[in-house]
């Protein structure tokens, strides 16, 4: 298997971007990544997108977007794994290069979520849960994560305030990120007094609806060295993906995320590293409880200790293991298909030392974790600076 490196990164505008369509957002991110890499050709394109058919009535994104970029002719493929579509897009591009099928691949993700009403958006997102077993009887995504939160609180004593502290931390990080959708700082009291969604989760425990796209250019190591231009080369040292039973009710333990654990073990094994080697992480905090359980599942803290990570300051900027320095899904925004790629953009910025006010000092190894639904699919990537 060949070594693969990130040689270019780019984001579109993020937020409620009413004047930009899916194709415009995607092209903004793609051009930014190509310009960052200093290239104008790729061997293949991957597009992670969860539900463009439901959000904007458009499928078949591969062909559409290759054409938008003036690259008709290049093999272009959409991949889907709900909110992990971006991470799977990145892994697919990695595999193309590692296998020798391609030398340079543009790995992207995109979601245009605000062209539909709130109800239509909720219905599109609900399609990532089990339609017959969960959505039919009236479950929503906040409800499913709320039930995981209750189970975690009952088993480990995790508190309502600890959930809130995840949102407070990620908004503080997002306030330092010019690209974040919500840059205002919030307090624990704000979270606890915000509107109830699905008890115990309130609106400020939930990531927002976001338009946006992200792109990275991947290349084999020999090509990457010719494109470095004095910048650090960032190798994708480990890749792991795993699946789990779709419905929460089908899992023996609702307080853990086995697919995240399996994906992490595969990625760490490939990279020859352990959780103790990680300097910075971007993880899937679609709801506050998600970050808590994910940290445990990744092995970044012991089981049951997730609630204490934000509370103690360990996962804040300045702590021993900063998590979601970008602001995470909660503050930076969550255009579902783009998120997994945007996480890699943030870690690449951190490893380049180019993350500005939210820079984690001397970060040389970073991790991304991106999951679909309530964790029926998860992708983990481990990135490192190559000297």
């Amino acid at each position: 298997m060949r070594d693969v490196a990130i040689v270019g990164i780019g984001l579109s505008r993020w937020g409620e971007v009413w004047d930009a369509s899916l194709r415009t957002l995607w092209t903004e991110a793609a051009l930014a990544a190509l310009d960052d890499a200093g290239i104008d050709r790729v061997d293949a394109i991957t597009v992670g997108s969860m539900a463009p058919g439901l959000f904007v009535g458009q499928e078949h994104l591969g062909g559409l977007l290759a054409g938008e970029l003036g690259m008709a002719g290049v093999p272009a493929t959409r991949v889907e794994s709900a909110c992990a579509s971006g991470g799977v897009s990145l892994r697919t591009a990695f595999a193309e290069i590692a296998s020798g099928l391609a030398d340079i691949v543009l790995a992207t993700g995109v979601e245009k979520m605000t062209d539909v009403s709130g109800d239509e958006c909720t219905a599109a997102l609900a399609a990532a849960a089990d339609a017959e077993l969960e959505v039919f009887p009236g479950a929503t995504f906040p409800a499913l994560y709320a039930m995981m939160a209750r189970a975690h609180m009952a088993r480990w004593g995790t508190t309502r305030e600890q959930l809130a502290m995840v949102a407070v931390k990620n908004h503080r990080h997002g306030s330092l990120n010019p690209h974040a959708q919500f840059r205002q700082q919030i307090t624990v009291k704000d979270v606890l007094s915000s509107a109830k969604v699905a008890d115990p989760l309130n609106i400020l425990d939930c990531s927002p609806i976001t338009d946006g796209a992200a792109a990275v250019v991947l290349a084999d190591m020999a090509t990457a060295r010719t494109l470095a231009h004095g910048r650090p080369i960032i190798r994708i040292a480990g890749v792991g993906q795993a699946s789990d039973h779709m419905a929460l009710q089908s899992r023996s333990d609702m307080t853990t995320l086995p697919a995240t654990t399996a994906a992490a073990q595969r990625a760490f094994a490939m990279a020859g590293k352990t959780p103790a080697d990680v300097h910075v992480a971007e993880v899937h905090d679609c709801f506050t409880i998600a970050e808590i359980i994910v940290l445990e599942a990744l092995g970044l803290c012991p089981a049951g200790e997730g609630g204490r990570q934000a509370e103690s300051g360990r996962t804040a900027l300045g702590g021993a293991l900063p998590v979601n320095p970008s602001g995470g899904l909660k503050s930076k925004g969550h255009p579902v298909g783009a998120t997994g790629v945007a996480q890699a953009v943030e870690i690449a910025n951190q490893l380049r030392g180019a993350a500005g006010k939210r820079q984690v000092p001397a970060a040389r190894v970073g991790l991304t974790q991106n999951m679909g639904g309530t964790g029926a699919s998860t992708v983990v990537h481990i990135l490192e600076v190559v000297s």
Partner: protein
Amino acid sequence: MSTLNPARTAREYPARYRLEAARCEACGAIAFPPRLVCPACRGRKFAPVTLKPEGKVLTWTVIHVGPPSHRHEVPYALAVIELADGVRVTCQIADVDPAKVAAGMAVKLEFRRIQQDGEAGVIAYGHKAVPA
């Protein structure tokens, strides 16, 4: 976007109306609704079994922002329930003050209306839990 077309709803009748499940002949695990492959051992031979409509709450939430199909019911309690047969189901808990729901609460399943597609479309039935 309603998902309640007649064929799709009708094919769920055995499980939703009558709690018909399938016991794996190899390992004894119960699949509900029935499947072609046992999720526990990948066995492919099953015997029909009808679930006992009683169990207890494992975890729950009270939904304050509901989907259009259930908005008229908010706030409503939704739970993962473990039935006496060991099978878990996700359903609403009805006929109770949502604030009184708790883990371990004993419930029984009752046949109820779950959704309907407007004034003239499909009415879909299934089970809700009520205090035992």
